Structures are given as C-alpha cells and as structure tokens.
C-alpha cells in the first residue's frame, strides 16, 4: 500500500481552526488543506441523508459579473440559456462553459442577482483557467469581472438542514425559509452582515449554500455545529453526489468530452437559433454525425467497488465510481456504447464483473430510485 504525503504549502480556508478542533482528517485537495472526514465518511454520508450535515466549500470560486451587457456575454459563454433566469432575481441556472470545440471547460451555477449583476460559482480545481477564459471572452463588452475571494461558503445539507440552519443563524438568514429550490436570496446587502443564501447543493438533499465574509465564516460554522449540524468531509460529499447522479468536473467531463456524452444534454439549450454560444456548431456536428456513447449509471451486481477509469468490456469506461453507503452496493457513472442494453461487464483487475445499467440518479431525498 502506498500512502501519499506532500510537503507543498497548502491553502487553508478560514474555517481550518474549527476543522482541526473538531477532529478533521485533513488532506491535500487540489492544493487546499481540506477535511476528508471527521472520523467516518460513512457516518457523515448517512447523517446528510437522514439528518443534517455541513461542508466547508470555501475553496470554490465565487465570481461577480457586473455590467449592462452581462446577459449578452453569458448567452455566448454558457451552453445553457441565461434567458431562463433573466429578470428573475435570485433564480439559479446550472450550465456548462464550453470551449470552441464543444469540450467542457467547467460546470457552474449562475445566479441572477439584479439587472446588470450575475453571480457565478465555479469549481476550485479549474479556477485559473476559468477566470482566464472568462476574462478573454469579455472582449469589448461592458462587463466587469470580480473574483470574490473575500467570501466564504458553507453548504448545509440534509432533510433537517434548513430548519437547523434557521435555528442556528436566526435573523442572519431571515427570509431564507421561503426560498424555492434553486433560488437564492441576498440578505442585508451592502452591509458587513451580508449573507447570500442559495437553496442549492451537491448531495441530492434539501439544504442551503450560505455565503458570508471570510472573517465571519468560522463563527458561522460553530453556530451551525452547535445547532446539531454535523461537520462532514469531502469524502462524503463525493459519495453523496454520486448517489445523486451529479457530475464531477475532471472525472465525468472535461475539455476533451462533449456534454452530450457526459449526461449533460439537458443543460445544453439549442432552442434559440440565434444564440451562437461557444461550441454550438461542434455540438451540432456531433449530433448530426451521431453520438457513440451514452452516459449511464452502473450498479455492480456482485461484490467489489466500481472506480473511475475501469473499462467496460466492448468499449467505454467508468468516469466515477464508489461504494454507495445508502444502497450498500458499488455504483458508478460510465460511457457505454449506444447499443448497450440492460447490463454490461466491467473489467476490475483480472475479472469481468456484471453490472446493471440504470438511469441516473440512484438516490434523491433519502430514497433509492433504482431497483
């Protein structure tokens, strides 16, 4: 067994002290010193499915885009159509940002804040290339890009998360209770008590993602913990998102993959013929020529664990895999040949093991959706 260790100087979130006190096992996560678990990844997973857990997601990149041409800018930059959220303050939209060949630069959430102001939250691992791409794409447009590295983000997730967060934070997040799914609210705007609360997440459970100034993040983390929301590491975040059928950038799609073969067709909006978003012509060509793979969920029939990069016998491979704590079976995402039927075989070490092909997601809101 080889256990990696690193001496590189890691970045720390403003909550690092609380993590250490609460028993976090910290690991190098894309250059950040982040909690992988606080004792048991499995317990944390079940805690989110059955109660409430919270994640330090301060490593993610928050970007504010301001200017009267911001919607025109995003119409070209994003594969999904921001017209869906235009003039609906707080409304969120999930989208891919494509390169000109239709490959995925990143996946992100766009929040329409107010006219001429849109907030975008992108992945941590892609921060530099995202910002570079977004800046070059502005060209001469009246759009101003500001990275909000002064802000911290905590995700509270689980069936009891919103109620416990309301108890813990009270007036700090006043009004959040009324938020509909995939909507956000700015509370005390412009003041030093500003909070951005979004009813979004990456676990398949209800909850909030709460943004506050870096200087107030540790205190908020402790308030949430005192209300009974259990700290969870990024290990549980991965098993939760996999069960919930949510893609992970770098695993399930990247610049060499089309969103159409990554299970993300539903996020690519071709409906407005006039909207020439980046990568559109490449994707249209792909559709014309016919896709080779479909993106599916797999459930391993016997014992073992599915992992990214395991090969499908006859073509294709897994993009993500894990052991599902909710289903007590190995699950994964895979690109399989279009003609694949109800099962396929996965090459795991020297064996070929049978896996069932299913429609994603596996689990949502605590319930297993596949049989």
């Amino acid at each position, binding site marked *: 067994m*080889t256990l990696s260790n690193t001496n590189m100087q890691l970045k720390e979130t403003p909550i690092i002290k609380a993590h250490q006190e609460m028993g976090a096992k910290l690991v190098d996560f894309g250059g950040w010193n982040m909690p992988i678990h606080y004792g048991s990844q499995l317990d944390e997973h079940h805690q989110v499915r059955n109660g409430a857990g919270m994640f330090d997601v301060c490593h993610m990149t928050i970007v504010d885009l301001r200017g009267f041409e911001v919607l025109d800018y995003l119409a070209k930059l994003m594969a999904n159509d921001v017209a869906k959220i235009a003039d609906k303050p707080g409304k969120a939209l999930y989208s891919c940002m494509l390169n000109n060949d239709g490959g995925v630069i990143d996946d992100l959430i766009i929040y329409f804040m107010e006219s001429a102001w849109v907030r975008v939250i992108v992945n941590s691992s892609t921060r530099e290339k995202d910002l570079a791409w977004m800046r070059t794409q502005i060209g001469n447009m009246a759009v101003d890009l500001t990275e909000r590295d002064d802000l911290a983000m905590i995700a509270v997730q689980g069936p009891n998360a919103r109620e416990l967060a309301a108890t813990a934070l009270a007036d700090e997040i006043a009004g959040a209770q009324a938020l509909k799914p995939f909507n956000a609210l700015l509370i005390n705007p412009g003041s030093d008590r500003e909070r951005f609360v979004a009813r979004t997440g990456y676990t398949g459970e209800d909850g909030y993602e709460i943004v506050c100034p870096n200087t107030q993040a540790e205190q908020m983390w402790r308030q949430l913990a005192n209300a009974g929301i259990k700290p969870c590491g990024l290990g549980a975040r991965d098993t939760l998102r996999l069960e919930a059928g949510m893609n992970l950038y770098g695993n399930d799609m990247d610049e060499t993959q089309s969103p159409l073969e990554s299970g993300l067709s539903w996020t690519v909006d071709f409906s407005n013929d006039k909207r020439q978003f980046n990568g559109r012509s490449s994707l249209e060509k792909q559709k014309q020529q016919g896709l080779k793979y479909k993106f599916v969920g797999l459930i391993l029939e016997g014992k073992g664990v599915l992992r990214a990069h395991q090969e499908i016998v006859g073509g294709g491979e897994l993009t993500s895999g894990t052991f599902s704590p909710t289903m007590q079976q190995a699950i994964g995402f895979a690109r399989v040949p279009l003609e694949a039927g109800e099962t396929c075989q996965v090459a795991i070490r020297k064996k070929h093991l049978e896996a069932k092909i299913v429609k994603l997601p596996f689990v949502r809101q605590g319930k297993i959706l596949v049989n």
Partner: protein
Amino acid sequence: MSDIPQELKYTKSHEWIRVEDDGSLTVGITEHAQGLLGDMVFVELPDIGDEFEAEQDCAVVESVKAASDIYCPVEGEVIAVNEELEDAPEQINVNAYHEGWLFRIKPLKEDDLDGLMSPEDYAALVESESH
C-alpha cells in the same frame, strides 16, 4: 501516534506481520494505514495454496475512498485467509491487529524475516510520513 504493537514486525508499505508458533506469518494492515484509508467496504483475498514472491501484490483492500494493494511481506505460500472479512470488511477498521488480519503464509526461505521492520523503525517511518 497510532498504535504499533511491540511484538509485531512491519513493512514500509504498512503491513504488519505476526510470527506464529509454527513459524507461519499472519499479515494485516497497520492501524495507521486503516486510519488513512478510512471505512473499508471490500477485501479481495488470495486463494489458499497461492504462492507469492516478496513484495508481490497478493490482496486488495478497498475503502470508500480508494483501492490499495497489499504486498506479500516475504516469499511464501498462502495457508489461510480471513474469510470473515468478505462480509465484514469493517473489521479492519475496528481492530486492524486482530479480527482485521488478512491472510497467513508459510515462508519459503528461512532468513527472509531479517528484511522486515522493527516497531521502532516503523514508528519512525509513520512519523516521517506525517510531516
């Protein structure tokens, strides 16, 4: 500092080895290793009668997080495996040095044990890897 029993021998790849009265060797992974790997969910053990060279991969333990190869500490033949782990891989987390044992081998050369690490040397290795 994790638990490193004095009566055992160790490898740099984080296996522990207990020399039994009949000269056979029981092998498992250390407390330090199980802590880093996290919750175990699957174990693939060798078959009885399989022969392995020293440092050859001969078993796999998988936690939720990752799969890890287990290396045979010395050249030998597998004479027993811990079948209970098939249904209860978490035994490795619960008690890495007892119920969490993986397999037992009969060494094929007598002086092979000299290459294994003492508890003191293994403790130093763990210490150096955590910095």
